[in-house]
């Protein structure tokens, strides 16, 4: 398949990258996103210092950050795509792949592990028909592991969207996702 992939030479790639950046890329981000990003920029000494906020802003509008969005943000912040990619991929809550409407963050760190998060995860997976890292076919949920949500005293815990669920039991999972048909069923 690689036979057919046209790859432009360095110079051209550089040029076309730059040209695309200059003409098209700003149009990728919405007015609202740009305004919010600019507000963050005004608070920091370097444009690139607003990188994390910019990523969060775009993610809050779109649910995740696509390659195209990332290049547009990088251009707007006057940094290279690779530099911004380094930041975006460093944080596991910046999503570089599409996620469902709600993200389930299931803690698997020490306290929650002691309190049986493994069984909880099995239960969630069973209810929703998805494994860690997967999204339900109806696009409602994406299930992700997370290392400590800072509520260890209420372990095991998980977040569904913006809501924190404490002392979670299998029963609670059943109640929460009981109405969900599960994957493929």
């Amino acid at each position, binding site marked *: 398949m*690689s036979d057919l992939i046209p790859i432009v030479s*360095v110079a051209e790639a550089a040029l076309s990258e730059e040209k695309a950046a200059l003409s098209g890329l700003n149009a990728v981000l919405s007015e609202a996103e740009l305004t919010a990003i600019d507000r963050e920029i005004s608070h920091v000494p370097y444009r690139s210092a607003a990188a994390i906020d910019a990523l969060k802003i775009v993610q809050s509008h779109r649910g995740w950050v696509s390659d195209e969005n990332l290049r547009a943000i990088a251009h707007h912040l006057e940094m290279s795509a*690779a530099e911004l*990619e380094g930041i975006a991929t460093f944080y596991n809550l910046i999503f570089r792949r599409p996620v469902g409407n709600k993200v389930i963050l299931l803690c698997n760190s020490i306290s929650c592990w002691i309190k049986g998060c493994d069984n909880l995860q099995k239960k969630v997976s069973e209810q929703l028909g998805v494994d860690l890292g997967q999204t339900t076919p109806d696009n409602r949920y994406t299930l992700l592991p997370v290392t400590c949500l800072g509520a260890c005293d209420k372990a095991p815990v998980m977040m569904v969207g913006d809501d924190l669920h404490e002392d979670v039991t299998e029963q609670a999972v059943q109640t929460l996702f009981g109405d969900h048909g599960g994957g493929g069923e």
Partner: protein
Amino acid sequence: MPVIQVDGQEYEVEAGKNLLEACLSLGLDLPYFCWHPAMGSIGACRQCAVVQYLNAEDERGRIVMGCMTPVTDGAIFSLSGDKARGFRQAIVESLMLNHPHDCPVCAEGGECHLQDMTVMVGHRDRHYRGRKNTHRNQYLGPLINHEMNRCITCYRCTRYYRDYAGGTDLAALASRDHVYFGRHSDGVLQSEFAGNLLEVCPTGVFTDKSLVHNYTRKWDLQSAPSVCVGCAMGCNTLPGERYGKIKRVHNRFNAEVNGYFLCDRGRFGAGFVHDERRLQYPGLRNNDGRYDAINHHEALQYMDRACAPGKVAGIGSPRASVEANFLLRTLVGEENFAPGFSDAEQPLVELVLRLQQDSRALVPDITTIESADAVLILGEDLTNTAPRIALALRQSVRNKAYEMAAELRLETWQDGAIRNLAQDQRSPLYIAAVADTPLDDVATNRISLAPDDIARLGNAIAANIAGQPNADLEQPLQEQVEMITTALAGAQRPLVLSGTGCGSTAVLAAAGQVADALCGNGVPAMLCLAVPEANSLGQALLTGCDAPGLAQLQQRAASGEFDTLVVLENDLYRRGSSAQIDQLLGAFQQVLVLDGLDNQTTSSATLALPAASFAESNGTLISLEGRAQHHYPVFQPHAERRPSWTWLLACMKEMQREEVRSLHHFDDITRACAATIPALAGITAAAPDHHFRNAGVRIPRQTHRYSGRTAMRADISVHEPRQPVDEESPLAFSMEGLNRDQPGALLPYVWAPGWNSNQSLHKFQAEVGGPLKGGTAGARLLQSGIGAGPGTFTAPAPFKAEPGRWQLVPRQRIFGSDELSALSPGLAELVQPGFIEICAADAQLLGVTEGDGLVVTKGITKGATEGVTTGVDNTLATLEARINDSMAVGCAGFSVGLAGVQNLRPLAPVSLRRAEGWQRRSPELIGSDRDAGPGGTHV
């Protein structure tokens, strides 16, 4: 000097160093990964752990990182204690958790720092039972292979690529055990210095693509000390050969020339050595205009007959050795020898030499360039003309950071801390150029000006520094002048750079003025001037300042003064328009050409002689700082190829010329040249002569593990041929001899027991990161800073942009603007087609967009009609339009050396118009992508 105790033994060490450096300098083996002598410490890998004790009573001690621990008087350490050793073993074990078991198929194998360190710490058994992580590799271009699974996350690559070399397209991605070093997406690495990743990465993540596809282990490479012929910088290299092919080029450390790093033109640009187009046998043109191969006896007889009657002119070459040029000059006579520059270039190179000789300023080497605390570049795009200097300038702007660090008493090796402290504060670097340059990102300011205005700017700065401001500059320029003056005058080690690159003698002269004015104020200013080719400066030194040029030779030939022309390693069609060179060659009855390459000039020869390349012959080259350096043959030339000096010497012997009667060896020529040309008297000091023996034996080109016998020649004969004997140098084509404690110029490879990778270099250094034990290679010929000053200089009149007229200004490209890089397969893929650069407003005026065609015609200036004939086609070129808004007003940039620009000359006035019927290029496939697409085949 502090005294420290290591494992009960007291050592005196240099203050201000860290313990790792101190240990390595003492010859103690302490493993490490993330520390690099040129990049300092960050303490990331935890490999250099040692135990430090509070005092003599302390028995427990604590683990500290050697690379992060300053040596202090009385400090007590243990390297070999169980605790330290156990810790280091555990670190390697943890690094190996995800490391594949693929040494046998890894191109790094046999010269891998990770292998060495693993053996050194004694790690053997794997205890972890989990699965290994695997990664998808990226396509990084035709030069560099990516195999991410081998990464041990030492962060050296991004620290080098981003922090040291200023690249922006390689980053550390993701976190935890997913960390990935790569680009945002597949694509060619953009930095001109990306190739150093191969040597910086301690594992096989980044490897040399051409080596990977045509593989030989380091221990089977035959190598010799060599010098890069890519530009005039003269970087020291180690080409490695097997079966007649240069498999790869590694850096050869020279503290004053290239340190630890090369540019990609130099590293990947030696492929031409085994190019199919190279000549193998002498070729004599027959009546049908084709060539008959003849043997070397016939060739020499022919040469003898052609040269014996006198009436011979010679054209030398700025890319050939001093010795070959000297012999040709001797053969044809001083007044009949042209150095081989184009007529436009000759006065520029001569001026560079004069300015350096006359200047009161110092001509800096690379370490002094890195020490500059304020820099002004006039007109030169160094990244594309003398790339290694640009990399050094990226370090010089960090002197501000080191100043800030000194205030806080941070040691210079505290890399992470110092970068954090300084953020983007840099020492001043000002650039005046015809358009943007790749150094702009670290520049305080870059101003786009036409060459004449660059000269005026320089002149005004010089006047300002001397305290006699002249007020004829436009307002915005005047402001720049004030700022630059303040920066330079306030500096302790100001540096002025320029070069032949923008084609203007006025710019060069102005640079000389600025440096001299600074010296006038009692500051030890530096002046660095770039010339284009490996031996450009050598040619200027050899021929002095009024040697005949090409045009003069042609006139004299036309008037019947000459019959025969001998051309030495020079493609003249790069030095003038086709018409001019046709005319030049046509003025002679016979043209003898010595060259390795089949180019337009060799194809016009009556007799073409196959010359050995730099990798097959001895030679002295003189770099832009006036350093004479010696390169040695890496392997013996094949077929009837001979070094040019051998052809010329044999020819003159055949002619029974008196001058060569006592010349038998290469060294004799060097000595004769030094004796005849006062300016070159110092070249004999560049390297020891062929009598030199290292403790009584030669220095081996092969490692002691070299696999001598192979089946490679079995189809020819099962008998092994004898190893060739090297009559011309102290090196041997053999694994026998002593590669230790030799003079710096004679280092054929680095290896030490337990240190198979290039990190073994420190065993050859007097102290870690410092000069070689055997002394720095090369001899400086220019006495720096003793001139009387460059004399007065009148700035040119302001440049006036005229509607419908442009001044052509040169724009260099690291790949393709020189003669040789385009001939190496990897680089050839990155060479672009020729182009013309104009600003957006001009493009609109001409009705073109990016990628359209532009016709360049001779420009008719008001009043003057110089060179323009009405009624005939005045077209000079038709090239692709590039839009670049940073072009100086009224200037059009042209791509030097790339296809289609033969007829364009720097600074010529031209007219432009849209080309009708121009085919826009579609994105092209480049060869290597076809076999190795994204994440494709790997070794």
